[in-house]
């Protein structure tokens, strides 16, 4: 039997790697991918707790998370394409004109 | 209305499918050329040249070189020679008569130019080979008897056999069995 803590450690590791990606990388595409990674680590947690508590709500929430992640990816990539068409950059540091 | 009906029930699509199915079950028109069948060309087909003889077996060619002069690709070489042994119809015959088949375009102008009807376009079209040596048709080869007799009417498919001989690959026709190809 795998203890619950293993799953949580795995999800924590993925979360931190994703976080590091968001903070260190400047390529918008990779930042978006890191966000997907973070969402997935949350999913692992939800499903693991759902299994150990024998409650389906965790899985239901994981489905919601996946749906929202898909929607987020679609919109973000749409924005990225529009942005690239206007400015031709994929570097987050170069898009600072919206700053006040 | 009829248009909508057509679209809903894929009428055009089904028509196409039935057409291809009909083709699928009908007889193929391709022939299996070197293995089993061979096309016998018409009499006026322009294939490999032949050098003809008259009824007494004398060479008709008098080495006048008109064919070499008129050839647009300059692929015919003729070297004349004096001879009184009666090989030719006159005492001037060709010592060398050579056609470079790589350059020949089988236009048939040599045939028109020949005053003694010695050179004729034959019906042999299996001229592919593996080395350039055989792309040169010498006098001996041009004079050799042809497998397809000149008198035979052409324009149909005959049975043939594909053979590997020592001289190379040969297609042996069987002239007795013939059929229209369509």
């Amino acid at each position, binding site marked *: 039997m795998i203890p619950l803590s293993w799953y949580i450690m795995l999800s924590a590791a993925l979360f931190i790697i994703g976080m590091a990606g968001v903070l260190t990388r400047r390529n918008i595409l990779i930042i978006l991918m890191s966000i997907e990674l973070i969402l997935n680590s949350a999913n692992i947690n939800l499903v693991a707790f759902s299994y150990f508590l024998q409650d389906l709500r965790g899985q239901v929430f994981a489905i919601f998370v996946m749906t929202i992640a898909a929607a987020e990816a679609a919109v973000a990539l749409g924005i990225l394409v529009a942005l690239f068409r206007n400015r031709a950059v994929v570097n987050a540091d170069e898009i600072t004109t919206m700053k006040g | 209305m009829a248009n909508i009906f057509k679209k809903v029930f894929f009428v055009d699509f089904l028509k*196409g499918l039935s057409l291809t199915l009909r083709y699928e079950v009908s007889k*193929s028109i*391709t022939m299996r050329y070197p*293995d089993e069948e061979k096309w016998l060309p018409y009499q006026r087909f322009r294939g490999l040249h032949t050098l003809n003889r008259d009824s007494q077996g004398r060479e008709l060619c008098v080495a006048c070189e008109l064919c070499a002069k008129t050839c647009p690709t300059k692929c015919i070489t003729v070297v004349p020679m004096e001879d009184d042994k009666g090989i030719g119809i006159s005492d001037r015959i060709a010592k060398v008569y050579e056609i470079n088949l790589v350059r020949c375009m089988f236009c048939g102008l040599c045939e028109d130019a020949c005053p003694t009807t010695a050179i004729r376009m034959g019906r042999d079209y299996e001229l592919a080979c593996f080395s350039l040596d055989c792309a040169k048709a010498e006098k001996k080869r041009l004079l050799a008897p042809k497998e397809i007799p000149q008198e035979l009417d052409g324009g149909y498919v005959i049975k043939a056999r594909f053979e590997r001989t020592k001289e190379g690959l040969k297609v042996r026709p069987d002239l007795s069995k013939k059929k229209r190809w369509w």
Partner: protein
Amino acid sequence: MSHELITMDINTLIEVALIIVKVIFVSLTLFALPIPLTWMERKVAGHIQLRLGPFRVGPHGILQPVADMIKLMFKEDIVPDKADRRLFWLAPLLAMVPAFAVYAAIPFGDTVKIPFVDKEITLYISDMNVGILYILAISGMSVYGLILGGWASNSKYAAMGGIRSSAQMISYEIALSFACVAVVMIANSLSLLDIVNAQKELHWNIIYQPLGFIIFLIAALAEINRIPFDLPEDEGTLAAGYHVEYSAMKFSFFMLAEYVAMVTVSVLAVILFFGGWNAPLFLPEIPIFWFVAKVAFFIYFFMWIRFTLPRYRYDQLMTIGWKILLPLSLLNILVTGLFLL
């Protein structure tokens, strides 16, 4: 759980051995399938075009695929300069593995009694309770081989083929899944075994789902990149699309994946809409025979379509996918739901 492994009794061992044998058997069959299929495709092509097809190697050219295979094995394996070498290697494998992995969930029949041992064996590797979802998910993965093959070649035709394939696969996957959803609603289960069992005694889904079947067929044609939807490898405009730069064994992996995908789609069409291994009309039940016969018919049908229809234009492809098939499939689900209520 390690102690369970040790205390495994003989029956469990037999079960495990059976599964391994089944896996090996199925994958060997799939590896060998392109040999008869390429021959059949060439013969069908030939006869439809009033030709004879291959005839030189073996009787009626039956050994032609073997000759092709030998040729492909000994060809030079070219990797283009400036290609992304790792991905260039990975792409054919990524195309091939999902195509095979799908068969873990596909049932070929119910159970068969072995005559002498008096033991029943099941004719499927595993009966997943999410079978159809698994198949759709895994077969959706095969697009990676196409995209990466196109991108890694570092060639513009290949890249365009890759981009086309990604857009096409995503678009048609939706319609394909929705066509499957209606079937799932009727059978009340995601398991393929239950879906087939729900179609017993001629209650085949084709009778209840003609529209769903047409949507499934069109979307499946697009999903396996066959004419009339073979835009990713469009010879006319893209040379050969995503696999322009591939040669030798890598190319043959792509071909293998394509043929296996075609078989998969035929199998799915039979399972979902044509009653799986249930005998048609009132003919006697023969294990696996009817299944293979129906699958063979569909494979022939796909070849038949290939040599009947011309290729669609890319914008037409997208229009068909999004503006016709998607609304129709939603309508199909709605109507099915209303009938079930």
